[in-house]
């Protein structure tokens, strides 16, 4: 293990030589359109030659009830996904480790299938799962527990839960895979030592395994935060661009989509850009945490 910040010999411009291709394409295909996007956020909505309006869109957002709802929903959605997926994936990884070695690849593959599927296909599958009366979820879980069937897509009390379930179903297997890989990467030494030492299985897990898994778990968290705030495919396949009854399922990406649908490009861009500080903050926070624990 080496500190990465070791000075290396060679010309000062060497690192930039390696960065150049990446930076070139970044500049060409992302920074330039980003500037275009920023510009759009400073101009009026609509299709014609838009006039400059400065920060008017941003100010409007500050007073926009639906924007606040969207932020709140996205936050809850992301948090819930992380809170449900991480422990679940940990447990599944544990189960997989305990299961027959031969079967492991097949089982992991099965769990990964949702992540390998194109989002539009997921829409079809969700029809089967989240169907108000005949869906899998109601048939196999809700009704046997003698509850009334839940109309996942229409009942405002359940829409966000439906969204979270969709994310859980889609990404848990993927995260399990990563965690499993992480677990297998933990040198045997640690496990031997733990077994020799006193303490319950749970304590071993908490004090030995978990710290070793920090990098994996951070990666998982980053991925889910990205999915929660900037990936639209999940919400789209479930609700089709709608925020659902009473905006219960309105996410920030959904709101952007709705604005674009009505050609309010300025507002849509403003919403996306307003998320940027949040994302940078979250990312820096996670990276900072990562370095701390190294």
């Amino acid at each position, binding site marked *: *293990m080496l500190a990465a*910040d*070791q000075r*290396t010999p060679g010309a000062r411009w060497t*690192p930039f*030589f*390696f*960065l150049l*291709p*990446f*930076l070139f*394409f*970044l500049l060409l*295909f*992302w920074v330039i359109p*980003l500037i*275009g*996007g920023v510009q*759009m956020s400073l101009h009026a909505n609509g299709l014609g030659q838009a006039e400059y309006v400065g920060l008017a869109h941003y100010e409007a957002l500050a007073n926009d009830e639906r924007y606040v709802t969207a932020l709140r929903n996205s936050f809850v959605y992301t948090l819930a996904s992380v809170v449900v997926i991480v422990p679940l994936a940990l447990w599944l990884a544990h*189960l*997989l480790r*305990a299961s*027959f070695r031969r079967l492991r*690849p097949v089982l*992991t593959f*099965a*769990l990964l*299938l949702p992540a*390998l*599927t*194109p989002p*539009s*296909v997921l*829409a*079809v*599958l969700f029809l*089967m799962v989240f169907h108000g009366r005949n869906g*899998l979820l109601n*048939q196999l879980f809700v009704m046997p527990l003698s509850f009334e069937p839940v109309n996942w897509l229409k009942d405002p009390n359940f829409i966000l839960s439906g969204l979270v379930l969709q994310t859980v*179903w889609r990404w848990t297997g993927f995260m399990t895979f*990563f965690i499993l*890989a*992480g677990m297998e*990467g933990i040198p045997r030494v640690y496990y031997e030592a733990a077994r020799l030492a006193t303490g319950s299985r749970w304590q071993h897990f908490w004090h030995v395994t978990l710290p*070793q898994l920090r*990098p994996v778990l951070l*990666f998982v968290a980053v991925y889910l935060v*990205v999915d929660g705030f900037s990936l*639209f*495919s999940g919400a789209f396949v479930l609700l089709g661009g709608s925020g659902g009854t009473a905006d219960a399922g309105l996410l*920030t990406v959904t709101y*952007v*989509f709705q604005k*674009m649908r009505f050609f309010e*490009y300025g507002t849509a861009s403003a919403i*996306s*850009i307003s*998320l940027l500080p949040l994302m*940078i903050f979250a990312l820096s926070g996670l990276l900072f945490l990562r370095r701390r624990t*190294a």
Partner: protein
Amino acid sequence: MSVCVKNRLGILSLLLLGPFLLAVLLPFLWMALGMFKTNTEFFQPLAKAFFPANYDWQNVTELLKGRWVPFWAVLGNSLIVSLGQALGAVALSAMAGYAFARFTFSGKRLLFVLAVALILVPRQLFAVPLFSWVNELGLSDSLFGVMLPGVVTGLGVVYFTQVFRQVPEEYLQAARICGAAEFRVFLTVLPLVWPALLSYGMIHFILAWHEHLIPMLVLTSETKQTLPLALAKLYDVSQRTPQGVQMAASTFAVIPTAALFALCHRKFKSSLSDMLAH
């Protein structure tokens, strides 16, 4: 641990995994079976008609013959775009990761955070400006117009930064002592991390395979469409595609990525383990 205990644990874990596996696999099974159903059968409640009455291959053959969308052209386009993106992304990210991992230079941290954060912004922000810009570059309705924006990836940079941090300094020093230029050093390190290259290539391939927004904006001709776009067209109500055909297309959409994963699975896992061990 005794074999007996191991077996019991194995069975117990299988039982516990059971419901999850079922939850995951059942919808896919339903989807695949849907290929053979008529429209009426398809919408029946599960209990009544999970299995089709007849295994009629008509929907599948019609789809493959290109009656609804130019299936093979579309599949080919997706393959080209995803492969191109994967190769490009691996090249660019590996080099960038190497730079971030093994050098110090001013502005490094800032650059890193910015490069990655940029990718976190909702893609829709870029939609209209990118469309306009790609057109100005003359890449409208071209597969390159989809490939080139896609070779930039923040996830890849993070990944390879981590990977190259793992390489022992001694290895690099050995190469340098021989008087090699830095790029030569980089090339000699690559074989060492080839599982990581393959693994990331695979992840990126999958992400590119699923991309929707940018292909939708850039590609206009019917023969240039990628798989997600063709699927969207099939699902559109005004197209009146039989459900069976939609299911067949959906099933075929999953096969390439699933197959790719099945092939690379072990290498992917071992490289991940190595990387995450630190």
